[in-house]
């Protein structure tokens, strides 16, 4: 059971959160102008790093806020927690 440091509420058990997958995916501003392949990549292709993974979590059972987490997918260590909209930190 991971311990995730909610930027608002502090460390809470993983079960209070939901994991939203890769962070920093930007919805294309003009989907109509994309090819099928470009659109498909946006919808389906996701980073799946072995090592540091930047991902989004939502503290659904607490403050309800979404935020970003940098986590090692091998050690499960949480390396950084940062706000939505912030650039990913170097870890």
């Amino acid at each position: 059971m991971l311990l995730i440091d909610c930027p608002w509420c502090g460390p809470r058990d993983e079960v209070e959160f939901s994991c939203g997958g890769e962070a920093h995916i930007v919805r294309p501003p003009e989907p109509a102008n994309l090819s099928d392949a470009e659109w498909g990549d946006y919808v389906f292709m996701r980073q799946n790093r072995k090592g540091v993974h930047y991902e989004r979590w939502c503290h659904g059972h607490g403050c309800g806020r979404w935020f970003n987490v940098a986590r090692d997918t091998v050690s499960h260590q949480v390396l950084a927690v940062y706000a939505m909209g912030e650039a990913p930190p170097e870890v």
Partner: protein
Amino acid sequence: MARYSIFALARNALRRHRDWPLAWRSPEPKAAYDAIIVGGGGHGLATAYYLAKRHGITNVAVLEKGWIGGGNTGRNTTIVRSNYLHDESAGIYDHALKLWEGLSQELNFNVMFSARGVINLAHDEHEARELRRRVFANQLAGVDAEWLTPLQLKEFCPILNVDPGMRYPVLGGALQRRAGTARHDAVAWGYARGADGRGVDIIQNCEVTGFDIRDGQVRGVRTTRGEIAAPKVGVVAAGHSSVLAEMAGLRLPIQSHPLQALVSEPVKPVMPTVVMSNAVHAYMSQSDKGELVIGAGIDSYNSYAQRGSLPVIEETIQAVVELFPITSRLKMMRQWAGIVDVCPDASPIIGLTPVEGLYFNCGWGTGGFKATPGSGHVFAHTIARDEPHAINAPFTLDRFHSGTLVAEHGAAAVAH
């Protein structure tokens, strides 16, 4: 390859089992092969076996970073069935099931395929509707399927709780009688022995760390044991597929998650079949050795650590105790996890890639063990002919662009 039989056992017993041949050799890698298979799981070994057996391509190496069968092949709950919803899926899984039915004899290695039936329970009207849809679809596809009432279920599996007062009562269930379980490790070993006997080099402790790709064509791989050349490379790396794809400059729509399982202490036979439940999320069978083999869900986060967490196990056991009340005083003996390669439409990707000579077989997620023989068979065809077999033609990577998904979520929600 010396044949295995009761007579061979008796003969060898007289010689105190001193003369059994190696099941497979452990050769040093050669500088070059006609084809390389990356990943020594069931699918990779089966691919090598069928390349050698059906396509005469025997100068093949299987490169395995650890020990063969040590990935998901060695850690799955061994459910084999083919009652998938869509014709494309039923096609490949039933192809596999037919191969399972003669696999021990084909490999001369007892993989203990046990057609004890697999039941999917319905706990609400929605599930019942979806399951019956599958039953009817299967009947048309020639996949055996029938619907059982709660009483029939109870008869088939006496320890199942069908009390109408349950929190999520059992409304019925779909049964596939030809489905069942198999001895997972034996599948890897049997294919390895079969492939090795036909000249395939099985090279363990050999991790692929990069690809040699020039002019859009694969030329070989870099490994922890040196560079190895080959004009064709098939990657069957399950949870590690994305890592290998990245090495080749490809992107996959795959996420790697831990999927957990556990076994109870061994007890005398109590569980005659396999029961899977979606709403009360758990599935359970009993191995020939006596443990109850129980599958849990995936942990929600991406992971490459083959370990899971306690809450998932708690929920699973809550479901198990609800469905099988007599298990309450049995004990969990071991829990573990595997890293599964989850695809958005819960169907695999098997086929060519933009790199010539490079093929991927992945995305089996939580349910690829049952496909092992079929997957190896069609992947060998794909590699040998440089084009997909009709059975795997629908499972292209391109479908995530065109939208031609093979959505098996319904069938795969407890997808094993």
